[in-house]
């Protein structure tokens, strides 16, 4: 998926303060050089294999499949070092940072997975690191806050707005404008101004490439590929490899408590086109053109925007988007934990929940779910619910 002048159809662009434009140009130049160099590609491949633990398996979840009458495969990104797909992009962008000669990286984080991945690559590459995290998220994902600090990153709690992911992105952009000369903003999702969506998609495309190879070895393609969508990095990472196949692709957003305004982050279900945090995309906004409050039980999905590639894929019809509610996600979390012995992140639980909730629709089909992360970070949230009642 290549943008045309920074746009995917009508979505994307560079809606940032002018001060950042030279840095975005420098980043685009570095990225284009990076892709041309076989040495860079092989160094990244080495890190992905020996440091992060790639390739990750595609696991056929027999017990779950039997109970629900659907053949469910899981792409096990939860097995990666640092516990989620975020490390794929963090390693790639750390190499870009080194190439540009910058000494400091900053990042936003919602669930803390991207913050941990960024703090990890900062330790590996010897970079200074500052993480911005909403204070509400920090409280509900405390294990990750502790990990980031252990890794040597400064964790800045953000107390503006709803004190969650959107506010962490804003705080990161503000830091970047002030420190653009020596700092790279290692953005964690396929959002933000061009060329970030393209870069993040590129570094996450390994998820889809490995998945496709696995199914090629089985001699068929999955009927469906399903991934959760907040900003959309794990989804774009897996979908890309299947765009030219007959596989149906479904992105699942957080339906939260309900589809009422402020109760969810189902951007593609409810949003209108708008311009937010650097990009033109679907956006949850009210009739006074202000960003709507969002909610999700998972701290990685409660984002009022979505990556511009997803807006485009939705409008072209190539990818379908739907949503599941908090309760369904928690139910899927319990099911996978109890039936397969795999504790999934609450974000990834949304993708699985869509299959379990609609098992009659998927009956007898081969469904690949991107298990983008593991769930040990979510104990603090999950223990507030009675899983036995779900």
């Amino acid at each position, binding site marked *: 998926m290549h943008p045309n002048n920074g746009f995917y159809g009508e979505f994307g662009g560079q809606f940032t303060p*002018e001060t950042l*434009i030279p840095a975005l140009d420098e980043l685009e130049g570095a990225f284009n050089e990076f892709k041309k160099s076989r040495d860079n590609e092989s160094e990244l491949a080495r890190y992905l294999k020996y440091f992060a633990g790639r390739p990750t398996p595609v696991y056929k979840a027999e017990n779950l499949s039997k109970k629900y009458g659907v053949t469910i495969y899981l792409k096990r990104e939860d097995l990666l070092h640092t516990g989620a797909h975020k490390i794929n992009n963090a390693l790639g962008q750390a190499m870009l940072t080194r190439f540009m000669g910058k000494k400091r990286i900053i990042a936003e984080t919602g669930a803390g997975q991207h913050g941990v991945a960024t703090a990890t690559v900062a330790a590996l590459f010897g970079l200074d690191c500052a993480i911005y995290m909403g204070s509400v998220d920090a409280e509900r994902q405390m294990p990750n806050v502790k990990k980031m600090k252990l890794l040597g990153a400064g964790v800045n709690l953000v107390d503006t707005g709803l004190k969650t992911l959107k506010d962490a992105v*804003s705080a990161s952009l503000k830091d970047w404008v002030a420190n653009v000369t020596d700092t790279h903003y290692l953005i964690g999702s396929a959002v933000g101004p061009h060329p970030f969506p393209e870069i993040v998609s590129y570094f996450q495309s390994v998820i889809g490439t490995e998945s496709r190879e696995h199914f090629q070895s089985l001699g068929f393609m999955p009927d469906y590929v399903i991934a959760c969508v907040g900003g959309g990095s794990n989804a774009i990472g897996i979908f890309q490899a299947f765009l030219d196949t007959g596989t149906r692709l479904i992105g699942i957003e957080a339906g939260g408590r309900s589809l009422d305004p402020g109760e969810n982050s189902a951007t593609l279900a409810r949003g209108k086109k708008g311009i*937010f945090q650097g990009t033109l995309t679907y956006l949850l906004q009210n009739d006074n053109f202000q960003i709507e409050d969002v909610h999700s039980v998972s701290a990685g999905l409660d984002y009022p925007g979505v990556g511009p590639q997803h807006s485009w894929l939705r409008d072209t019809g190539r990818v379908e988007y739907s949503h599941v509610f908090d309760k369904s996600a928690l139910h899927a979390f319990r099911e996978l934990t109890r039936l397969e012995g795999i504790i999934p992140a609450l974000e990834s639980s949304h993708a699985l929940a869509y299959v379990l909730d609609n098992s009659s629709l998927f009956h007898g089909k081969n469904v690949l779910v991107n298990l983008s992360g593991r769930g040990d970070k979510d104990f603090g949230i999950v223990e507030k619910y009675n899983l036995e009642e779900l």
Partner: protein
Amino acid sequence: MRGIYILGGYPDRESFKKRFLAVAETGYDFIEVGLPFNDPVADGPVIAGAHNRVINNGTTIQSIINDIIDLKNISIKKYIMTYSNIIYSYGIDAFSKKLDGYIDGLIIADLPNRMIGFFYGRGLKIPIVPFATLETRNSDLDSIIHSKSDFIYFVGIRGITGSKADLTSKELLEKIKMLRAVTDKKIIIGFGIKSPEDAAAALIAGDGFVVGTESVSRQEDPVKFERYIKSLMVASKN
């Protein structure tokens, strides 16, 4: 050129209109009226906090636009400063038709020069003011000098509103020199102007200044506000 930024609808619609009149009566050349947005990535805590207060009070963008139109006979150049989403989501064409003839230009904090054509191409007739920054390269000059605007907004700092600029830094003076070599447009320095001394220094380094955080922080209090804007005017005339 001397300018003051105030936020539309802040702390309420009537007070805003009174502060607007005070700016004009004090003899300023131009006023920038902010339209609030609740993700203002270029703004520090003072202006961002004021944006949120206006929005949470229930004051609508539409009502602020109507207030600006009501002030049409006040003799001062008027600019709207806001964020891309406000204009895009209002409807670029509708926004332009509503305000064309009532304001002199638009300053869009998250719209870099290379994206200005995006708005013109979708029906905007009001000139957009281009930015120059401490990061401006030679290759950026074309988009600045060929703009439809009557001035260039020079962002005096790397950072957000409310920080402090160094108006005598070599870096800043060299960037201004680089602009002077290619354009006769007025260079107005914004971001980082706080004190009467800053205002005077901005008139030496460039062709004018605009103050935002310091005016918004006094916008609730007519006495402090007027004393402040007068102090800048006096200092910058000496």
